[in-house]
């Protein structure tokens, strides 16, 4: 299989690469056949556009764009009134502004956390699995310890200790989420290590790094991609919960914080703030869950059986 490609030369190597791309196109096509997945992708695209083009959609508030501009003349006004499409909260903060700029924060949060945890988790997990022995044992005990504390509670404690701020939420989530990826990649490496074609590659003389690069990583990529996609949604969910509880700075246009801001209004009948902010969270998480599930159905041979 792929381990032979180091022995091949010239045109055969090329055909191996083109086969890889053909397979990727095939996978993409299969993924797109699922209407739910497509819906998820569309929603993600919309959020992406919203986040990137935020300054164009609404004028950035000064000095801090992540604080909603306050219209003190129109506090607690319902949607559609006085030019506030989604209404305002009890301090006159425009909700549409909040949702749009909140998408930037969500993007920032999820991308940073997911990419960081992927990298950290992969490195640590690979180290553990490739070296094996005492290092592996130790690292896996560490992972066990991390996993015995429920994610939200762990992140909550870290963020509380560091001090309420958005940046600390990111740090806290990175510190908690990396274990998942470490475990996945370690599992994959061990599985591949035991597989026969690695033994064949060793016989041929492939170095450890080459085996890792060509045999291990391509196979491990699948569960990692699925998990990363799902985590893009999960991170925002947990992050919103943390800011709802109060671990973000005051007045931040983060969706969870916005829901919290709208709480008091709820009981007075001002439903729109919490509702729309919360809807944004739901849509974001839903989109990534749909895409993640769609990917899993296609990539994972042990699918649920549709």
């Amino acid at each position, binding site marked *: 299989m792929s381990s032979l490609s180091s022995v091949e030369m010239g045109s055969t190597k090329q055909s191996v690469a083109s086969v890889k791309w053909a397979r990727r196109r095939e996978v993409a096509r299969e993924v797109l056949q699922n209407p739910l997945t497509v819906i998820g992708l569309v929603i993600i695209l919309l959020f992406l556009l919203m986040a990137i083009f935020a300054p164009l959609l609404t004028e950035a508030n000064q000095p801090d764009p992540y604080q909603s501009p306050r219209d003190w003349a129109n506090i607690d006004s319902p949607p559609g009134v006085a030019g506030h499409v989604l209404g305002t909260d009890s301090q006159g903060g425009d909700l549409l502004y909040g949702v749009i700029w909140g998408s930037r924060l969500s993007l920032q949060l999820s991308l940073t956390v997911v990419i960081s945890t992927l990298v950290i988790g992969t490195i640590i997990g690979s180290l553990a699995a490739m070296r094996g022995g005492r290092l592996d044992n130790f690292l896996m*005990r560490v992972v066990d*310890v991390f996993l*015995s*504390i429920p994610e939200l509670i762990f992140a909550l404690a870290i963020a509380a*200790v560091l001090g309420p701020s958005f940046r600390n939420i990111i740090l806290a989530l990175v510190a908690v989420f990396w274990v998942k990826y470490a475990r996945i990649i370690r599992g994959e490496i061990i599985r591949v290590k035991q597989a026969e074609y690695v033994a064949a590659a060793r016989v041929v003389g492939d170095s450890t790094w080459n085996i890792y690069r060509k045999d291990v990583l391509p196979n491990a990529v699948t569960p990692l991609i699925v998990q990363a996609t799902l985590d893009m949604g999960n991170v925002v969910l947990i992050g919103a919960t943390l800011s709802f*509880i109060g671990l973000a700075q005051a007045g931040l246009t983060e969706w969870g914080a916005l829901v919290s801001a709208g*709480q008091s209004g*709820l009981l007075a*009948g001002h439903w729109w703030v919490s509702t729309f902010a919360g809807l944004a969270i739901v849509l974001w998480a839903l989109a990534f869950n749909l895409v993640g599930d769609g990917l899993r159905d296609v990539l994972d041979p042990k699918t649920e059986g549709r």
Partner: protein
Amino acid sequence: MQVRDYLIRRLALLPLIMLGVSVIVFTLTRFTGSPVGIYATPNMTPDELAALEQRYLLDQPIPAQYAAWLGGLLRGDLGWSGVSVAPVTDVIGSRIAATLELALAAGIIAVLAGIALGTIAGVKRNKGPDHAARFFSILGASTPTFWFGLLLLVPFYLWLDWFPLGRSTPDIYSSLAHYTGMYSLDALLNGNLVAFGDALRHLVLPAVVLGFGAMAIIVRMMRSSMVEAMSEEYVDAARAKGLPERLVIKRHARRNALVPTTTVIGLSFGFLLQGSVAVELIFRWPGLGQWVTSAILAGDQATIMAYVLITAFIFMMVNLAVDIAYAYLDRRVVLGG
């Protein structure tokens, strides 16, 4: 026997892991402004503070500090809770029952509803009920618990006034003799149906909200294991014996599908613990979750750290219990038949 070995190994690991958790928590405490703050009660004199610092070896290198901290822990000294104005250990005692009651109620709802819906979805695969269940399940996984709680509060509490906030009506509550600390249970043990009704009225809404997310996961797992079970040969064999379909589903397919589902039930308890933070906050439920949220706002480190330790411990115990149950249920796997 394999079962016993496996369980002994798990039990042996438990203290080790708890130790690891304590290391993490200890590390976190050293990040806070003043490590002694955990133990300091208000209105302490500088002399008393100095004495505390002596006691917990705060002038010594870190390992010694850890030893002192751990020693204090094992002696039952978890510090002073600023928000509750009492030693942490006292507060835990009074609040843990409330959280457990909520988690149990939510868990029961999640498990029963989840199994029922998952079974239907698995049997009627790819038809109406299945799509509904899967949609519902994915929605459950995408909805933040706190928002869902708020969403239900408005109609049921604000408009209809069916369910009140909080845990109990004080007069009714205090009229009971408290055996377990769980309102609904105590009401039953007292034979007091009015109190029981009161307990349920307060319990229903937060339990449903809390259980929703966990239910979504269980539905999903139950559905897929039902689909798998229904395609097994013994299901066809049962039909070939002339058994009515209802029996085939219940006694043959579902009984086997429940086994892998127990693992998910354990996992979802973690979700229940996590969700309880927001739910207790929103519904003013006097449990550990509400306690820690007020601690966060007040910067009460002692409470937060104690909360981490407690929840980790509870979580591990539940996981162990689930593993035992699973090992018992899946005799085939365990006994290697």
